[in-house]
């Protein structure tokens, strides 16, 4: 079963959101990522994976949810996306990716530092090549977000 390589990421999202925000994200129907697609989200945190498998992990949020989550973490009310918000998004995608490594132990993976893309309707530069990438939308009581995972050399039919 090759979804077993995706499941660690989903579990990591659930754990992180439970612990940090006391939220229980619910996974909705997953779909494919089209590389030229323009996203509906306002801010995305991206981490690259290298080593025995190459890939990418992206967490995307609407501005409102990003602000909300940062507010919970810092205790200060956030009204606009600033350095702390981007920091929070980056750290979130870092935690999700690092934790997911636990379910992928048969591969030695290295994760990069996170990078942030923001602005309404932004585009993400997906890795070149033909790696399959899927997006899993999540819903929480505070809003929706999405997790996109692409892994090459792992996901095979």
């Amino acid at each position: 079963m090759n979804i077993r390589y995706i499941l660690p990421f989903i579990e990591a999202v659930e754990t992180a959101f439970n612990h940090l925000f006391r939220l229980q994200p619910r996974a909705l129907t997953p779909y494919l990522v089209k590389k030229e697609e323009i996203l509906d989200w306002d801010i995305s945190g991206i981490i690259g994976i290298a080593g025995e498998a190459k890939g990418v992990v992206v967490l995307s949020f609407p501005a409102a949810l990003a602000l909300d989550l940062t507010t919970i973490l810092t205790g200060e009310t956030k009204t606009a996306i600033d350095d702390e918000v981007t920091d929070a998004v980056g750290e979130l995608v870092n935690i999700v990716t690092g934790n997911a490594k636990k379910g992928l132990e048969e591969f030695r993976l290295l994760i990069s530092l996170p990078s942030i893309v923001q602005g309404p309707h932004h585009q993400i530069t997906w890795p070149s090549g033909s790696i399959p990438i899927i997006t899993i939308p999540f819903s929480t009581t505070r809003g929706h977000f999405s997790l996109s995972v692409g892994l090459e050399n792992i996901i095979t039919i």
Partner: protein
Amino acid sequence: MKKFLKNVLYSGIQNRLPPEDQIKLLFINSIIFFGLAVLTVFGARDLAHGELWLGSITLGIAGVVLGLYFAIRAAKSSRFGVWFLPFLMFAFFSYLTASGGAGSTTVLWMLTYPVIVVFLAGAVPGSVFSAAFLAVQAVLLFVPGLSPVGEGAVEFKLRLLGVYAILFTFSLAFETIRLRAQKELARTGAELAAEKVQTDGILTNVTEGIFLLDPTLTIADEHSRSLAALLQTENPGGKSLPELLKGRLADREVAAASDYLQMFFLPHPPSHLMDGMNPLSEVAMASADGPHKHLTFAFGPVELITGRRVLGTVRDVTQAWELGQKLKDEEDRSARQMRHLFQIIHVKPELLLQFLQDADEEISAVNRRLKDPKADLSTLVENLFQGVHAVKGNAALVGLTSFAERVHDLETVIAAFRGKRPVWQDFLEMTVQLSIIHAELAEIRELLDRMALFQRGMEASTGGKDLLLMALEKAVDRLGHDTGQTVELDTLRFPPGLVPDRYRKLVKDILVQLVRNSFAHGFEPPPERQALGKEPRARIRVAAQSGEDHLTLTYWDDGRGFNPQQLRSVAQTLPSWTGKDPSSLSDSQALKLAFAPGLSTAVAGQHAGRGVGLGLVKDRVEAAGGTLKLRSAPGKGVAFDITLPMP
């Protein structure tokens, strides 16, 4: 040399005796030899001094003692010596006491009696012998006239007997203690042996490999028997565990295992982390006999008297793992890609391009549905199925059989969920599989792009065909096949590359529609054609020319052509007709009816007759700023002249 000595000292029967008796025999033989030596010396001396009686008896006893030695050897038993010696010594020492001179020190020999006898005969018989002996000596010494020694000083005699008594007491004490210690030892030994039987039983029969590691990570000799089989080494005891694992595991896994195990020997190992860090908790080991073995190792520190050790256990979980693997498809990716490539290069690039476009559209459509939060789940499955089914069909048509097969596998997975309520994880499964297909299509496209570059290079040098013309050819072929008519397509006067990019689709669509129209009105069968003076084979001709500010296209066929009368009558039957009375139209005006929407002189079929085509063509040409003219005569064919502006 050692062996000889041992043989002599133990009378050659060491192995037959329990340890206790071995010691006694050793003692007996020592006394025998010592006694022999002393007796011989003293006997000889006595004889030399003229004491014939004493000397002869002494030497005689020596002979008896020697005889005793051989008797023991012959009898292969020390019991003989054990009992004979006390009596012999009793007699001999008594004789010495009786025959010694006043103040003679010969009597001192008797002091050795209790010690020897208690040791040889044991506490109780020894005591009896010693007590009896003491009584006899006392009589000999104190009853006047029995012994010359008796005439000596009373103090001497008392001291003699006193020392004897002390020696006797202590011998008894020592013997008792010794006996008890020996019993204790034997009991402990028996207990240990019994326990060892139990541990051995466990170690022999347990299926897990159990072993101890020392700080150098060497396996201790005591380990469970199954360890050998599990590690595939005959004698794991004494070998280094990392060494055994090398070659069966990846080097870095062996290194990680070494590091991890070393941590147990740190002064303060991070015990709360250790379990979580175990890199050998599940490993696949290369096996000498075929498929990999899956083992789980677990380790824990133990403190023994000899220091800290690591207790390890290992189990074989291959079966469980293999079961899991059977559910996973293991096809080698590169082998698949090779097959892919092989098939791709046999397919015409333009067909492949079309396929990729279509497949992309199908998948996009499906993806839109996946993204729709309001989508009904069972309909979603249906959409997925249909989309995948379409892609499969197209792939097969185009000749990508290997790819089609795998899409078929995906289709089967989805089919299983049709009509049921799939759960979220099922969708994850389907989407992941779909994304893989999507990625492969991207791969194919990339390959194609590269090949297209190559082909463009080829085209430039050999003047290859125009894609537009190829599409026309294909249409003519297909229609000809469908209607059973063979039609020649003449494109000689249509220079490839003449049509600019922005008109390509329009021109293609127009020409294809015109071809459809030609076939719809039909070409006469060859005999009829010949009767009419036409070439037996029907022809369609397209030409293109570029002027200074416009592009001229000409389409010509030599089929039946339009019949103005037919057009008039069909127009009359049209319920929506709002124009002039068709019967009043001239021939050339009637021709224009051909462009009227809804009008068709052919039966509705797959390829024509819905009365939309020509009208649409005219509209599109005019919308682009061009003109379309029709020339036709019944039985002669049709000709269309199209101009398009070229600014």
